């Protein structure tokens, strides 16, 4: 069977990096192919080549056996490839229908409408201006109708223009207007002193080339696709109001709307809750059954084994192996991805907790809407101990971490760090005392995307020795610090002056981790530290967190991944609706017990409910 899409020996070079090294993959019709790899392995690059965002330096892409060349995503879309990116490309203030139409070609229907309107307006007003009843008037009417027809003809013939269509039409109208003006002036029949035909020409040219939006047509098509593939979506909903899972469905329909036969999903479950991820898998199976072929990129080994028909692993730009879920295990896949044995379970020594570094007492804090997000929480974190806060997202963990790092005000209660009451101190105080913070939203709180790596690495320390003396920045020491940290933490970046926005998510997180840990904090607050990262980066960051603990720091770990909590923590507390539901040493915790507490079910024995000191 001819593969529906095949990439043969794709090679792509960037300055300083060989992103894809003779990569060949093929996809059969109706197959779900999983692409696994670390950050920097080349998966995103390969997908961008397939989608026409990059041109391969060598190699071929074949669609149904025929070689094709893509100059931009439009070509790829025309060949039936659709892509759903990790960060959605939707406009929140527009409706689903309007988002669907973005970048869409002019539908033939509206080209006729534009031309017709232009012809009527041009003909009638031209006739009246030229002199009704006189030959000049008729000539004027004819010329403007002809212009509209010519512009329509150019659009229908699909001639590629150097300028955008509307501008071309406007300029064409301008030229005709100028010529007409010259002619009418030379024959002495200009209707006014003012060269009226020139702006008139511009107007008619514009009218004939303008595009009209046909929302009803698009909305109907959306409804049809929605019912055909079982993707529930309301065409009139405003995208910003939709849940993340619904937004993702809109993105998938966007691809299907453009007649995608191959769907590329980039980290689709990174933003979904476990339930939404299951729904997505259902959708994928349905799509595959109806002949849509799917390539999806993911780091989650568990999902790959659950949904994929076939798995391909990339490492450092090369294909290092393929497998099926039947033959592979999480360990074998991880080993292929990283090239060595990977410990999926963090190996750590017993904790040696000492005196408390963080004491929280009866803390109450409000969320952005004024509700009590943290509702009377008390617990301690001791030096040399990792306390994991488990819980479904949205139960106050984020607000808790923000209050501890002083990005949010506490309504009541006390926070003590290393014995100092910091409940109302500014963030810099907390940093001074020796707190490091890995924020949940790395783009918003952790990094300045417009800055280079070197500047981000000194984001919280720029005002101190040795990075500045007085108000003068000490550039050599900033550069030295950056070089040292990039090396120490294996941050993959072309240079320390590269803008951090171009780094992959894993490397961006490494920048944050490097910055915070380089300060050798006494208290580390890590909020979703490995969200959206690959196995290699996750292992690295976990090791760093354990190393911080072993050197005497106390770690407050907040995570929505129960696996992470259970493998890293020494003690686990569970939050539900702003309260601590239970606290226990990790040895006593089971998934079932934690799951119940996370759902708000009170534990049987009273001792588990009271927070242990």
């Amino acid at each position, binding site marked *: 069977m001819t593969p529906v899409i095949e990439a043969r020996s794709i090679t792509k070079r960037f300055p300083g990096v060989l992103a894809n090294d003779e990569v060949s993959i093929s996809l059969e019709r109706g197959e779900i192919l999983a692409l696994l790899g670390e950050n920097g392995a080349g998966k995103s690059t390969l997908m961008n080549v397939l989608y026409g965002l990059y041109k391969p330096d060598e190699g071929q892409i074949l669609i149904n056996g025929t070689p094709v060349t893509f100059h931009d995503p439009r070509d790829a879309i025309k060949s039936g490839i659709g*892509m759903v990116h990790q960060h959605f490309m939707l406009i929140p203030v527009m409706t689903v229908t309007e988002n669907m139409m973005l970048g869409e070609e002019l539908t033939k229907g509206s080209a006729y409408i534009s031309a017709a309107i232009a012809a009527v307006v041009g003909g009638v007003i031209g006739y009246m201006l030229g002199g009704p009843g006189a030959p000049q008037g008729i000539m004027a009417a004819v010329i403007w109708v002809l212009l509209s027809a010519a512009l329509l003809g150019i659009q229908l013939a699909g001639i590629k223009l150097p300028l955008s269509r509307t501008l071309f039409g406007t300029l064409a109208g301008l030229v005709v207007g100028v010529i007409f003006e010259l002619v009418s002036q030379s024959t002495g029949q200009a209707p006014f002193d003012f060269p009226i035909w020139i*702006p008139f020409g511009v107007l008619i040219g514009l009218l004939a080339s303008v595009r009209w939006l046909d929302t009803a047509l698009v909305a109907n098509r959306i409804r049809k696709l929605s019912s055909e593939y079982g993707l529930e979506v309301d065409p009139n909903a405003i995208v910003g109001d939709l849940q993340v899972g619904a937004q993702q469905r809109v993105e998938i329909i966007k691809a299907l709307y453009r007649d995608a036969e191959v769907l590329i999903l980039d980290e689709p479950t990174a933003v979904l809750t476990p339930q939404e991820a299951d729904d997505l898998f259902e959708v994928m199976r349905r799509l595959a059954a109806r002949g849509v072929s799917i390539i999806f990129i993911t780091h989650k080994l568990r999902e790959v084994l659950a949904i994929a028909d076939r798995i391909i692993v990339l490492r450092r730009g090369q294909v290092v192996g393929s497998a099926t879920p039947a033959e592979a295990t999480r360990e074998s896949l991880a080993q292929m991805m990283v090239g060595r044995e990977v410990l999926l379970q963090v190996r750590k020594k017993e904790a040696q907790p000492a005196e408390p570094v963080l004491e929280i007492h009866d803390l109450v804090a409000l969320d952005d809407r004024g509700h009590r997000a943290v509702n009377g929480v008390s617990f301690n974190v001791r030096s040399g101990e990792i306390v994991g806060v488990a819980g479904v997202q949205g139960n106050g963990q984020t607000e808790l971490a923000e209050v501890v790092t002083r*990005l949010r005000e506490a309504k009541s209660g006390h926070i003590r760090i290393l014995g100092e009451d910091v409940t109302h101190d*500014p*963030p810099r105080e907390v940093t001074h005392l020796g707190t490091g913070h890995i924020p949940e939203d790395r783009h918003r709180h952790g990094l300045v995307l417009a800055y*280079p790596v070197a500047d981000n690495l000194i984001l919280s320390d720029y*005002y101190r020795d040795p990075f500045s003396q007085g108000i003068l920045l000490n550039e050599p020491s900033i550069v030295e610090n950056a070089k040292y940290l990039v090396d120490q933490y294996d941050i993959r970046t072309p240079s320390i002056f590269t803008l951090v926005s171009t780094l992959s998510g894993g490397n961006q997180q490494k920048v944050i981790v490097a910055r915070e840990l380089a300060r050798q904090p006494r208290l580390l607050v890590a909020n979703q530290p490995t969200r959206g990262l690959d196995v290699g980066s996750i292992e690295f960051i976990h090791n760093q967190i354990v190393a911080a603990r072993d050197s005497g720091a106390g770690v407050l770990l907040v995570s929505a991944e129960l696996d992470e909590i259970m493998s890293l923590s020494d003690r686990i507390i569970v939050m539900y609706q702003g309260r601590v539901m239970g606290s226990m040493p990790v040895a006593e915790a089971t998934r079932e017990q934690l799951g119940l507490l996370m759902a708000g079910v009170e534990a049987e024995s009273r001792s588990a409910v009271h927070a242990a000191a």
Partner: protein
Amino acid sequence: MTTGAIDQPKSVGFRPDGTQWVIGILLILGALAPVFSPMFARKPIPLNLALEQGVTPVRIVTLLVVMALWAYWVWRQPGAGKAFRVPLLAVLTAFVVGAVVLVLAAGQDKSLGDRLFLALRGYGAMLDGAFLKKAALTNTLVASTPLILTGLGVALGFRAGLFNIGAEGQYVIGAIFAVFVGYAIHLPPIIHPIAVMLAGMIGGGLWGAIPGILKAKLGAHEVINTIMMNSIAILLADWLINNLMKDTGSSSAVRTPIIDTSANLPQVVEIFPKMTGNVLHLGFFIAILFAVAVWWLLWKTTIGFELRTAGSNLDAARYAGIRAERTIILAMTLSGALAGLAGAIQIQGTTRFMPTFFAAGYGFDAIAVALLAFNHPIAVIPAGLLFGALQTGAEVLQIRTGASKHIVSIIQALILLFVAAPALIRWVYRLRATPDAGTEQVAMTRGWGG
């Protein structure tokens, strides 16, 4: 967020390395040497004659071609030079549309052929008036001085994420403070002009600090407040000049007394007698100095780091311990101080007193200048020169061709439109967006989000 970003450039924007800078400067000097060399000959001739003889169209064209080749060479570095494309194309497109407007508005009873030729003659006249005629170049430099300084103020504000629309009012208040120190307080030379400039900076800084404080403490948006402060400033100045600061001796115009000669900014001709720069005063060079100073502040100091970080990402700045309030007030004060300095220098260098209609729209042109320079202090210099050239060229345009000199307002507005909406230029010319457009977009879009 960039996931599948378009081909990522290796370097960061237009960054000529050391060798390229040296070669570029040598090229400019080499191309201009024949123009200036008669001044240093055995029988030296003054600057304006040298310019008149030396600046021929051939020389200009040669210089432009040479610089274009150099720019292309630097451009060919991966990623280098892409940052220049949008502003250059914006200016070019604005001139094209301006030509169309010239054609359309060329008065009654003109044939089409006449009109088209008029556009060409008009631009030729502007070029003459800005650069080529005798003393035109110095006029341009003098006209650019307030534009560069106010542009610096606005650009600094943008870098800190603030929309300072109040440069006009800060300019006027700075001028008020300055002119007062100029005529009412008597100090020895050298100290007096410096004091006058300082007074201008204090006045402008104060006028900028007020909306800054309102934003920092109350969250009141600076766009509204600065616009309102403009009105207050202009009317206040008018009242002061008509009443408290009125020069009772002057019969014709209502104005303040003339400032002491000790407070004047010396003309270049006084320092270098061989150059009859007739109106060129030290202010231009002070403006250049301040441009370098602002660049140094923004990129070499901790204060600048805080301002830029707050402008790029206020959340990350807060996390980094930067106090938003302090940064906002500081940025608005500095921004206003620069505009106030412009007012002071304008008085010290040109008029030497303050008339009632002093504000000439510099504060609003400054916004266009800052945006055209993409808020980079060094780029404000050529941007300010361009707008200054438009201003001086416009006078000659009106004299020679009868077209209204307000055509330059149209051109300036178009430049501003195209630069503020770079997507428009990219759409017309089918350019690809560059990933390091990050800074410019952040500065623009932060406005209403607070």
